[in-house]
């Protein structure tokens, strides 16, 4: 004799709830994935803007150095009646860009001007605002863009008297090519001793912004020397 039992129980409410819970967890995971993808893309967008602003800072300093070369070529004299130096006005310190393109006066000769700020005391001065034309500028009064930009200039110092007292230029280059240099916030000799000579400047441009109240930053560093 054979017994055939047909199950007529169906599904209970608990089973149903568990099934729905599993589905919801799955959906939630997929949704989180999409959300983080979207957030990541927004981060990337903010970063593209930040990177370009940061690059602008480096290019501004580079433009000053190149303009210094042009002044030098014309044998121009600086304020102290010395020949115009390649690093004229590029002394160590913290800066914002004062004049880059906002040239309402027709007499503006186009020379980039930096403005010294005390950092971190005057960190607020590094904020970038949106001006009437939509450009990012440091002049306050207009709408805050969410970005700030700070340019730091340091001297690159090299020990020119390292081995046996020979101080020929090739040797300086060689030593610095070996990464044997130090950064100074002031004069090289006062920072590391009389053996150290300034061979270039290091320009560090930091741009800060926030995404969902979380701080983000990008730092570009470039080293400028007196050769093209």
């Amino acid at each position: 004799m054979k017994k055939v039992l047909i199950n007529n129980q169906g599904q209970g409410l608990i089973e149903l709830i568990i099934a729905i819970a599993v589905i919801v967890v799955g959906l939630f995971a997929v949704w989180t994935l999409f959300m983080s993808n979207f957030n990541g893309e927004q981060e990337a967008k903010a970063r593209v803007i930040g990177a370009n602003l940061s690059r602008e800072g480096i290019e501004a300093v580079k433009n000053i150095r190149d303009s210094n070369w042009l002044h030098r070529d014309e044998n121009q004299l600086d304020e102290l009646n010395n020949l115009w130096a390649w690093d004229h006005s590029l002394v160590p310190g913290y800066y914002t860009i004062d004049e880059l393109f906002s040239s309402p006066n027709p007499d503006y000769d186009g020379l980039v001007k930096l403005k010294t700020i005390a950092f971190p005391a005057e960190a607020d001065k590094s904020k970038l605002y949106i001006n009437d034309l939509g450009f990012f500028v440091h002049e306050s009064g207009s709408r805050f863009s969410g970005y700030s930009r700070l340019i730091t200039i340091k001297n690159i110092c090299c020990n020119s008297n390292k081995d046996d007292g020979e101080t020929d230029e090739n040797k300086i280059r060689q030593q610095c090519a070996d990464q044997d240099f130090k950064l100074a916030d002031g004069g090289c000799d006062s920072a590391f001793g009389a053996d150290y000579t300034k061979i270039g400047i290091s320009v560090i441009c930091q741009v800060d912004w926030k995404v969902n109240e979380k701080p983000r930053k990008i730092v570009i560093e470039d080293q400028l020397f007196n050769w093209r």
Partner: protein
Amino acid sequence: MIIINNKKGFTLIEMLMAVAIFAVASVIIMSTFVNAINLEQQTANYQKLQNDGRYIVEKIAKEVRGREIIPIYPGQNPTSSINFFPDEYDSIVSIYYDPNTKNLIYSQDGFADSLNSPNVEIEELKFFILPSKDPFSNVPISNVQPRATIYMKLKNKPAGKYAKELIIQTTISSKFYKR
């Protein structure tokens, strides 16, 4: 042989309950799905803007670095085009904005094409070209290295609910050293 046979079936209430639960579940699933698709579209739009923005900035940067910019009067700033002097191969390059088609055009020796892709339009484009006097003329009248500041507002095309905007500003200093 004993067959225990169930002849009960579903009652109307059970049926309604099942349909209701199914409906709720499918509404949740569908809305998640639709939202995910919308979000994905917005993400894709951001991506397109960044692609174009990066490419255009790099392209302009390359030209500004390597070529000699024709200076413009201070009153003409901000302008919507950059023109370059002929290079050593007598090639004439210019980059200009076409406000009608909202394209950024790169033109070399009369051949012109847009730098932005068909699904991105340039809403706004401004250049500041400085200095206004040519530092590389025979008698130099300026001691400022040429540079260009770029301001560009990109937008997705066609404009719709999920069209995004991207504003890029940067400055490129020329690496053209003639003197």
